[in-house]
């Protein structure tokens, strides 16, 4: 359908539109007009993505003189593919209605592992080794060498791509990763490099958060994006954590050992370079080879040339971990200009870190004091530290090292050094000799943790004209601007319009014996609570069909409770009705469990999945339709409050942004809980129940932080239930939902708007819309 929002003609590929989608577009358009940032919360399953895409592309079409670029950031590759799929549909629709002028170039960008078409490279098992395998075939010096030595293996796809040079272009269209691979295979061009090259010409780019937020990657991938871009962060409820992770580094003993090995190797390389030069002088045949290169590098550094960019262009792969505006445009300090000296500095640094790791107590330090003690004990200055990463990069390029995956430890250490040297505020260094939960196993770890989410995202806000942060759960919506330190022009939360009450949230506060249940620290191991939780599940599995998902507050709690259930026979009772699957920290195992869980749901056997809030499953896996008819959230998923890192962050938040400790903890716990229970409903045709099993949810201060679309379905009668009441409600609900229903909502509540409805609405104003 085609309709107008103020002065923009919107092309929407479906015949009907939900009222909330329309409102979403109106708000989004205002934000674009104001060239400002916005925060929009809309429940999943309401077609957020298509609303967003269709408004922004239509906006672009209506302003042909100032074309905006859309940068769409997703969390996972799967979401990326889904987004591109929708865009494809939309694009077809627009081209059909507008002809070729509506044509755009849209593409997804991912790591080499997802884009590579060279079978030999793809044989490597993980991302880092694929990257390394690629570099082994595409680095400039390898290619130069191959002209003399035909035995050196190159990548044909890359060679063809290079040969085509400026002519290697993608015709307009929408390219998913699959399409890119197919195109690359067809033409014989490397899809990865082609995609990276095409970014500057594309109208829509879909990629992962890291490409914008992690300075190490953003530096060379997203450098050339114009200011007139709209950046969208989808599913952004955890964006603050992503920002923090992008700037946090942790060093363990294995890292140090690995780094030491790396240094030895580098040392050897350097020595052999000099060795060669001696032979060369003896034989007197060649002029400058390796040693020459080292010298040339030294000279360059003396001259103070910018580190990156001057080296052969295609070989950039290590960008500075600090944010662009924090990198000083200075020459590299004299004491690390020579390769040998730099290696010595690194050795001293490693030694110092090793000593620090040997501590018996937990230590917490600010970067400033860390740097000063480093200076006094190891004689490394702050400025030297700051340049570690760049210097390492330069050295590795000079030595023509391609096995980058092997050199990860030393990169981590240099990463750490640079960040410590650059930032004095918003960070702290925490050394823990053992894991708090397992005090007898020594596992020292040194963490540089960033507390300020606004640091990593600041350049994004500064650089682009509009940044859209959207997700199904952004409540309370006023906290995000404070956490990320920006002022949105629009921040709104939308409700879901539904023809039937397809979600049924309940707060369960008591077991069937009327005793309160909670995972509060002093209650969680009470056998009565454990039993009541168990009984709840036993009853539920006997009345809920197909899939049931349970979320626990932590792995240790889950392990404990399952063990107790096993002893008391509750687990057996559950197994009579449904199969039980458990998430573990092992990804492969969990994937297998999930796969079998789905199969059990499909074939009618029914299954229960035990999972952990904040785990991989809670974040990325959908339990829609029959894969999740019920989700039980056992307890309030607070973070581990004794964690040193969390404490430091809370302190920082309190001092800098005046966010109260309790507020932040509750906010964080409730967004996790909402995220968990939100897994069951992915579309309006779907239905599911949500049980919040903890007495604390009945308190207003906790409950009110749940997103509006859950709250609006949480009836007063469902706020303080015991197990038997919950069972009854569940039975009724499931029966009601099993009845056929009419999708358009003709019974008074209009949830699908047609073209005429919209036109009528444009006259009377949006407010009259019925929810």
């Amino acid at each position, binding site marked *: 359908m085609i309709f107008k929002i103020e002065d923009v003609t919107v092309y929407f590929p479906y015949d009907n539109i939900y009222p909330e989608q329309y409102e979403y577009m109106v708000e989004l358009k205002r934000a674009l007009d104001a060239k400002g940032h916005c925060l929009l919360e809309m429940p999943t399953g309401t077609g957020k993505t298509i609303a967003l895409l269709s408004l922004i592309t239509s906006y672009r079409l209506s302003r042909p003189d100032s074309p905006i670029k859309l940068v769409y950031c997703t969390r996972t590759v799967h979401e990326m593919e889904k987004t591109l799929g929708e865009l494809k549909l939309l694009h077809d629709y627009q081209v059909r209605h507008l002809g070729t002028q509506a044509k755009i170039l849209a593409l997804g960008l991912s790591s080499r592992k997802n884009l590579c078409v060279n079978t030999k490279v793809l044989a490597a098992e993980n991302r880092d080794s694929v990257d390394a395998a690629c570099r082994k075939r595409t680095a400039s010096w390898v290619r130069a060498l191959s002209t003399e030595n035909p035995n050196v293996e190159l990548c044909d796809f890359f060679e063809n791509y290079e040969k085509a040079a400026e002519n290697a272009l993608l015709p307009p269209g929408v390219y998913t990763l699959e399409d890119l691979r197919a195109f690359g295979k067809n033409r014989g061009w490397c899809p990865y490099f082609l995609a990276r090259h095409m970014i500057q010409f594309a109208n829509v780019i879909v990629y992962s958060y890291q490409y914008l937020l992690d300075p190490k990657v953003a530096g060379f991938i997203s450098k050339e994006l114009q200011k007139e871009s709209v950046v969208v962060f989808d599913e952004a409820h955890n964006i603050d954590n992503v920002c923090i992770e992008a700037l946090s580094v942790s060093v363990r003993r294995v890292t140090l050992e690995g780094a030491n090995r790396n240094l030895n190797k580098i040392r050897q390389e350097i020595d052999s370079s000099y060795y060669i030069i001696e032979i060369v002088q003896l034989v007197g045949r060649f002029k400058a080879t390796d040693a020459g290169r080292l010298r040339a590098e030294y000279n360059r550094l003396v001259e103070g040339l910018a580190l990156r960019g001057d080296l052969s262009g295609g070989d950039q792969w290590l960008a500075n971990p600090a944010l662009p505006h924090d990198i000083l445009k200075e020459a590299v300090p004299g004491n690390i200009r020579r390769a040998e000296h730099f290696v010595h500095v690194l050795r001293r640094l490693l030694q110092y870190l090793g000593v620090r790791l040997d501590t018996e107590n937990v230590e917490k330090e600010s970067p400033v004091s860390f740097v000063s003690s480093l200076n006094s004990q190891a004689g490394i200055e702050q400025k030297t530290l700051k340049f570690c990463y760049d210097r390492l990069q330069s050295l590795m390029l000079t030595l023509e090292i391609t096995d980058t995956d092997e050199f990860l430890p030393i990169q981590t250490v240099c990463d750490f050094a640079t960040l410590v040297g650059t930032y004095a505020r918003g960070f702290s260094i925490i050394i823990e000799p053992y894991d708090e939960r397992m005090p007898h196993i020594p596992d020292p770890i040194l963490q540089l943790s960033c507390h300020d989410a606004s640091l990593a995202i600041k350049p994004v806000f500064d650089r682009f004209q509009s940044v859209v942060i959207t997700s199904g759960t952004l409540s309370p919506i006023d906290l995000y601007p404070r956490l990320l330190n920006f002022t949105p022009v629009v921040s709104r939360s939308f409700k879901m319009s539904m023809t039937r009450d397809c979600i049924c949230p309940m707060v369960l506060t008591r077991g*069937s*014996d*009327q005793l309160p249940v909670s995972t509060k620290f002093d209650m969680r191991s009470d056998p009565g609570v454990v039993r009541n939780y168990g009984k709840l599940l036993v009853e539920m599995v*006997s*009345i*809920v*069909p*197909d899939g049931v998902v349970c979320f626990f507050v932590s792995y240790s709690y889950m392990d404990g409770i399952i063990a107790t259930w096993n002893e008391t026979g509750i687990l057996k009772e559950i197994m009579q*009705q*449904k199969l039980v699957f458990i998430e573990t920290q092992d990804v492969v195992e969990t994937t297998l469990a999930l796969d079998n869980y789905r199969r059990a*749901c*499909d*074939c*009618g*056997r*029914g299954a229960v999945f035990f999972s952990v809030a904040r785990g991989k499953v809670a974040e990325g896996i959908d339990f829609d*339709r*029959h894969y999740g*008819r019920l989700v039980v959230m056992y307890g309030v998923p607070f973070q581990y409050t004794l964690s040193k890192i969390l404490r430091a962050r809370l302190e920082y938040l309190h001092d800098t942004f005046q966010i109260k400790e309790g507020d932040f903890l509750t906010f964080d716990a409730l967004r996790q809980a909402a995220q968990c229970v939100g897994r069951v409903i992915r579309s309006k045709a779907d239905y599911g129940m949500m049980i919040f099993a903890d007495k604390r949810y009945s308190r207003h201060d906790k409950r009110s932080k749940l997103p509006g679309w859950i709250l609006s379905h949480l009836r007063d009668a469902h706020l303080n239930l015991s197990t*038997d009441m919950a069972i*009854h409600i569940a*039975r009724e609900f*499931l*029966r*009601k*939902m*099993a*009845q*056929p229903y009419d999708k358009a909502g003709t019974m008074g509540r209009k949830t699908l708007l047609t073209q005429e409805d919209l036109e009528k609405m444009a006259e009377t104003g949006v407010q009259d819309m019925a929810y």
Partner: protein
Amino acid sequence: EEEDDEDGIGEWERAYVDDRSWEELQEDESGLLRPIDNSAIYHAQYRRRLRAGTRIQKGLIRYLYIVIDFSRAAAEMDFRPSRMAIMAKHVEAFIREFFDQNPLSQIGLVSIKNGVAHTLTDLGGSPETHIKALMGKLEALGDSSLQNALELVHEHLNQVPSYGHREVLILYSALCTCDPGDIMETIQKCKKSKLRCSVIGLSAEMFICKHLCQETGGLYSVAVDEVHLKDLLLEHAPPPPAIAEFAIANLIKMGFPQRAAEGSMAICSCHKEVKIGAGYMCPRCKARVCDLPTECTICGLTLVSSPHLARSYHHLFPIAPFDEVPALSDNRRKLGKSCFGCQQSLIGAGNKPVPCVTCRKCKHYFCLDCDIYIHESLHNCPGCESIH
């Protein structure tokens, strides 16, 4: 007091807690409590059904297996006195209704218990045998297995002649199925042999049941309460639309046996004993059978009587659905003030017109009750008939 402690609620409370009879009441404008009025909804449902099934070819000769799930879940008490008893009760009513509407068809019964499917009765045309077998032993045990039941039914139905419509109606009270193998394969097998599988669930929607019904073209429904269960069951009584492959007209050999003379003696072929009087004689092999319609046990000829054929006939030529009359049309004032069927006034309390319908052909007016009666039982429009 001790009892109270055991499960939290006393016996006297339980009746209310389980029944929740207050939920069936609602407050009207004047604050009086009255039962929720569902008649309008029911009528709307009925109209929808009527519209869906007009003038399409139907399979009149049906071979229906009713599968009843007597697993553990059937003992649950959310239907009073228990799911099992309610299922049996309504299946009984259904069997009678079924033979009334489809005299040429046959039914067989299968039960699931302890994860195994048992044949209660083989295909046959006598309602009494089925009902007796069904009521024989009501108990609910063990797990339920959809696959076992389907396999068994598939085996039975694979042997019926190709002109017959193979149908399975499953009453499923459990929420899971413990199968020995891959149920998807079994579903595909059923689809291949054109088994139309319908499921009526008693508690909640299950994916596998939905999938089964979608694949095989059956209906899937879940009963909300006892009345609803009954309605859902009876929906399966009229013949379903014919499957495309069967839509070609078929000639079927049938015998119209004569009633044996009073007092004649013969060995009954169905009970294998000497009987005096009553009974029918197969026109081909002269064997004696007790009931019609049936299949001759000796020569396998289908034996029917002509009223049976006539009763099946109306499914093919149903009365066109009546049009609803808008409440305030001029025509209405002029014409009938009372229903042509029952002669009751069509003007209700406070001179408010009662919703009514009109026949397209004879233009007579009927009340909603008569509308349902004419279409579901009478199969003749009194208005049109009286013109002749």
